[in-house]
């Protein structure tokens, strides 16, 4: 009995110090100098721009990765072809590679001295230190989330329902819309929430390719770092509190979805 109590106590204490205290600390520091100071910092044009940019990136990345995730899961779950195992491995790569490596790859590829950079620049297309670069890196880092959630479910469900729909005369799109999609909807939503949370919070890869130009290419996580380095503690924590809120909402939605299953 004592051993059990000790273990529970240890778990509670470590959770307290690892999760609860830091979370509370973010908000206590953000509001440390009162609501007015918090408001002023959040409404600072650079921070507002960072919030906006982060939202834009997420809004672009999310639908693309949902489409990619469904397509990849469908391909892997429904067909047997040469290189299928390799494809599964490829889908997983962004999880195993450090995001900063992804950022550096893009730097080498699209940079001024890079492989494709000069050609693109000649044609007036700038990828690095601009929104396209941020979107590309975020897309890479968050690409596995949807596929990873949907694939096991599709494999477990098998294709009989879809075959039944074919014999009943349904077209490819009708089968997807009326049979496949309703069957994977919770897993899909779950994957999308994880993907969105990560897209909003991504730091490492983005920091390499964004150039951190205030008010132009700074996303919210980069803005937090900048403000912190500026020794603007209230500003940094205010920005961080926004990120934290987004993460908490995502977590709440995810928990709700877990119950729906």
């Amino acid at each position, binding site marked *: 009995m004592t051993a059990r109590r000790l273990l529970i106590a240890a778990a509670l204490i470590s959770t307290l110090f690892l999760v609860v205290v830091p979370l509370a600390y973010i908000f206590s520091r953000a509001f440390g100098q009162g609501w007015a100071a918090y408001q002023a910092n959040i409404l600072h044009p650079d921070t507002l721009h960072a919030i906006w940019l982060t939202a834009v990136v997420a809004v672009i990345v999310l639908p693309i990765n949902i489409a990619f995730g469904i397509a990849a899961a469908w391909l892997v779950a429904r067909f047997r072809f040469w290189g299928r195992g390799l494809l599964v491995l490829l889908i997983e790569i962004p999880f195993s590679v450090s995001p900063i490596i992804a950022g550096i790859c893009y730097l080498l590829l699209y940079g001024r001295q890079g492989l494709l950079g000069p050609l693109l620049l000649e044609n007036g297309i700038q990828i690095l230190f601009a929104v396209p670069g941020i979107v590309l890196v975020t897309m890479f880092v968050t690409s596995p989330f949807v596929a990873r959630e949907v694939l096991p479910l599709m494999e477990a469900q098998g294709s009989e329902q879809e075959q039944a729909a*074919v*014999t009943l005369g349904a077209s490819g799109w*009708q089968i997807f819309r009326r049979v496949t999609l309703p069957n994977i909807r919770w897993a899909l939503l779950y994957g999308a929430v994880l993907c969105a949370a990560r897209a909003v919070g991504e730091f490492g890869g983005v920091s390499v390719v964004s150039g951190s130009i205030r008010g132009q290419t700074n996303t919210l996580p980069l803005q937090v770092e900048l403000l912190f380095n500026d020794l603007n503690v209230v500003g940094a924590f205010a920005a961080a509190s926004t990120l934290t809120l987004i993460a908490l909402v995502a977590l709440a939605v995810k928990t709700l979805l877990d119950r729906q299953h």
Partner: protein
Amino acid sequence: MTMQVTSMMKRFGETEVLRGIDLNVRDGELIALLGPSGSGKTTLLKIIAGLDWPDAGSLSVDGEDWLRVRAQDRRTGFVFQHYALFPHMKVRDNIAFGLNVMPKDRRPPAAKIAAKVDELLQFLQIAHLGGRYPAELSGGQRQRVALGRALAIGPKVLLLDEPFGALDAAIRRDLRRWLRDVHDKTGTTTIFVTHDQEEAFELADRVVVMGAGRIEQVGTADEIFDHPASPFVARFLGATVELPVILRAGRAEAPGLDASMLERRALPDGFATLFLRPAEIDLQRDDASPFRIRQITSTGALRRVMLDGTGIVLEAELPRQRGADPLKVGDHVRLRPDAGRIFPGAARKAPPAPIPLKKETHR
């Protein structure tokens, strides 16, 4: 609808699943594809539905080349063993699915679809289940819904893959009778796959016995049961006793065998194999016979007798013991089958040592 399948071949990798299938299906027929698992029967069914494609051969329906018709356009009602109902739709919507997905210009108006669904629910005796989800139904009810969904599109042919395989025995018998009824009322040409011979024989007009990618025999229940075309069919239909015999003037001879109840067969003299079902063998005490009773077990209605002799072990099923002098373990008996099938050549076991010529054996 009439259907011709000609020289159909299909392989999955190294495995030949169909090795030249020829089959004609007549209009309004109820056909069973009967065979052990791996005999290719489900593959054949899926090819007819357009869910799989043959490597060679042709499939023609009412004179039309169906291999050029998309599965969507074939109008086959396919019923899966595990129902494959759409779990997020109510029973009504499941049944209406095939009508709801029709192109706008051919789709009946909503009221007509609803009326059709009502009619089917009535016809399938599940009128009270229309508002339920598949998860709220029993296995038998689900299979009725699956059949309703297939019938709703007015299929040219109804294809059922082990339709009762996942149900327990009592419901199975019920549904079997019910399916025969549905078939007789709708007149839809129907092909179903089963590995259960009782099911095939009870339900089908004609039974197609398949083994290892080939059709072994096509016929009515009686034809196949009494005159199996090959050792495979004989074995598959329960003739588990294989007795090596020597044919002489059309009559089987072997030590301990009294074949006097069997008809003479127009087969050349020589080695042959006699296929017997355990229930067709009567035993008579005969101390000169090499067969000896090793074990007797009772199943209630029957006694199962295990025998050995001449290097083989075999089983006979006798009705419950009557009379004063029951057979006992250790008794020597001779086999007196009242039916049997003879195929020339030694089947599985080596023939017995040639018996010395006698003028009259086992009369």
